[in-house]
């Protein structure tokens, strides 16, 4: 049998082939949408056509067993058309209104909650953690699961002042928009890397390693006559960048790694311009399997926000109105010296919004 020629650089498949006929027909001609109930949207086209979307939360980590089950649901209820959102939710794209209820019932049976629309808490954008990453200061999926178990009512209802976006990252690399979310949960290392001098010359290029350190804490050195490096520990801010470049710089530490919490960021340009998340809890130790202290801290912030914010106000906008001292008072979170920034902050004078007069 002739072996097919090896293909490269073909790029992603053209999305058009995966669009439902109703979408092809009304592409770019949608008039408005409504959210008749949590997790269900109806988009009405200028032609009068109606597209119903049913959105369900997922754990992001999915077995092909589940993906096939989603495919079967899509065949049963919406001619096989579905998509995912940027926040790991799966969306079924229906043309028959009467299919909404049975689809919801099936999703419920499978254990996937319908919700995440409007003024709710959508799925937590998150990272790999102990399931797959080398530099994680904590697990990702387990913390996210524990938090979402408690915030579940806010996913399946739309009972908050505005939408609330939570992001999680297990180290400072922050895969995901952790630096600009309403609430961010971030894994942190707190000790300098431990150097495996023996293996370092075999595993790593020393000049690359030295230049990988943002604070210049790493210098070339010799160890028992062999080339290696040394770390000026007073300059290290535990970013783990060296470990990503060189596996002989172990940054993970079971005793001292843990979690920090940040609030008040946003990416949308609606009302207030985009904002960074700010530190509110510098450190909570890892407490697997369910991280109760982290869950409690997040739930507390959500509750205080839900009680005090005005309609349409995102967390950061609410805090800006009431001021940070009041935020710390209302939440009961202690303010420490770690809350005060001591890193460089350049470039704040650049325009960082699309809010322009055209």
């Amino acid at each position, binding site marked *: 049998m002739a072996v097919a020629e090896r*293909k490269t650089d073909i790029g992603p498949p053209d999305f058009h082939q995966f669009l439902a006929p109703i979408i092809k027909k009304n592409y770019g001609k949608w008039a408005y949408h409504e959210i008749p109930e949590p997790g269900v949207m109806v988009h009405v086209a200028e032609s009068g056509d109606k597209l119903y979307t049913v959105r369900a939360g997922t754990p992001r980590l999915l*077995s092909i067993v589940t993906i096939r089950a989603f495919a079967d649901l899509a065949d049963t209820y919406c001619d*096989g058309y579905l998509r995912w959102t*940027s926040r790991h939710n799966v969306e079924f794209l229906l043309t028959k209104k009467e299919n909404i209820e049975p689809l919801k019932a099936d999703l419920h049976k499978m254990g996937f909650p319908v919700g995440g629309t409007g003024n709710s808490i959508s799925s937590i954008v998150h990272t790999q953690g102990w399931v797959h990453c080398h530099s994680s200061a904590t697990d990702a999926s387990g913390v996210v699961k524990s938090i979402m178990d408690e915030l579940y009512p806010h996913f399946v209802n739309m009972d908050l002042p505005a939408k609330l976006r939570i992001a999680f990252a297990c180290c400072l690399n922050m895969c995901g928009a952790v630096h600009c979310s309403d609430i961010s949960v971030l894994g942190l290392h707190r000790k300098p890397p431990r150097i495996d001098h023996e293996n370092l010359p075999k595993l790593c290029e020393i000049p690359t390693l030295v230049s990988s350190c943002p604070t210049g804490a790493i210098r070339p050195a010799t160890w028992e006559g062999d080339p290696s490096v040394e770390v000026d520990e007073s300059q290290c801010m535990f970013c783990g960048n060296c470990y990503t470049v060189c596996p002989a710089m172990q940054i993970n530490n079971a005793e001292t790694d843990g979690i920090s919490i940040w609030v008040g960021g946003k990416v949308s340009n609606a009302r207030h311009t985009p904002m960074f998340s700010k530190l509110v809890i510098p450190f909570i130790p890892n407490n697997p399997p369910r991280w109760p202290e982290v869950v409690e801290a997040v739930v507390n912030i959500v509750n205080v926000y839900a009680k005090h914010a005005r309609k349409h106000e995102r967390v950061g906008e609410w805090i800006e109105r009431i001021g940070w001292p009041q935020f710390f008072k209302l939440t009961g979170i202690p303010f420490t010296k770690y809350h005060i920034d001591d890193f460089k902050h350049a470039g704040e004078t650049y325009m960082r919004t699309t809010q322009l007069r055209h």
Partner: protein
Amino acid sequence: MSEKKRATPLLDELKKGPWPSFVREIEKSAETNAMARDTLGQVERSYEDKISHWKHGGLVGVMGYGGGIIGRYSDLPEEYPEVAAFHTYRVNQPSGWFYTSDILRTLCDIWERHGSGLTNMHGSTGDIIFLGSKTEELEPCFRDLTEHGFDLGGSGSDVRTPSACVGPARCEWACYDTLDACNDITHTYQDELHRPAFPYKFKFKFSGCPNDCVASIARSDMSVIGVWKDNIQIDQEKVREYAANGTDIEHEVCQMCPTQCMAWDGTKLTIDNANCVKCMHCINVMPKALRPGKERGATILIGAKAPIIGGALLATVFVPFLEMKPPYDDIKELAEAIWDFWGEYGKNRERVGEFIQRVGLGNFLEEIGLDPIPEMVAHPRTNPYIFFEDELEEEEDA
């Protein structure tokens, strides 16, 4: 193969509660897949030890590509031999994450043949993530993917897999075709995507309006955000309908407008469009009554990033308004001009945003041939340390 499922009392705790459980997902694959079974075992071990048991992979990949696969190894290979090598594929998603049931089944079948059966839908950058493959399966899996029309995404110091919001496929607010732009740019830059040649990663993200559902202003080196130039389209009848149905237009809409450019007299909504900054708030609150204007395009912003290495940055306005028509030559010219300058002078692992801070936005603009305009800054400089160039001396001589 580790025949028996190891006891996982800690992970079992994470099967409780109403939110769908990742542990159950791993278990579903573990019923038939030994790699998934050892994943479960090793993750339980991490829960006991409170530490990751993965090692950063050396160079692994498929022939001719420098990116798209993340090398990963267990640091407990004797105990969990099936995941001794457990590499990740980034499979470039279709624009907007649209699928049919058939294409999903095709992907599942490919992944059943070659790996753990575990995925992320999707990774943070937007790719379909195939989680956990042995080294010897990399090339066969790649071949299987390309034969079914899929290709790898980016990793390392290259163009990373671009992503786009749902755009005109379903959203009435899309001011340009995000899906097409994303698809076009991705196909144009296959070489830059697969063969790392930059100082560090370069991300494109396409949002159809300033709501920025793909977080492009926070996460992409080139952020393309849809916007309009003319007047917001108002249906006064529908505005009155919202008012009748309980929307407090004065407080919820007019007073929350960032430039206070709206007025409501109880029957008519007026907008001083010259002072509207296109923030989307009023449109978000009353989608049936208000719509973006008709003269549509995008704002191009450059240089956002997460903190690694030099601190987090939001993107900076470079082009306030650009028409977004295929083949998107303006965007491509801008991206290529940036790559030329940053590619030559950027330091290893220095993102474009950091590079701009180091050389100064003014110098950067000059190098890439863009004129400075006031839209690029929140305000002019406040410090007097101006590095005047030679022209001053020449004037004195004249």
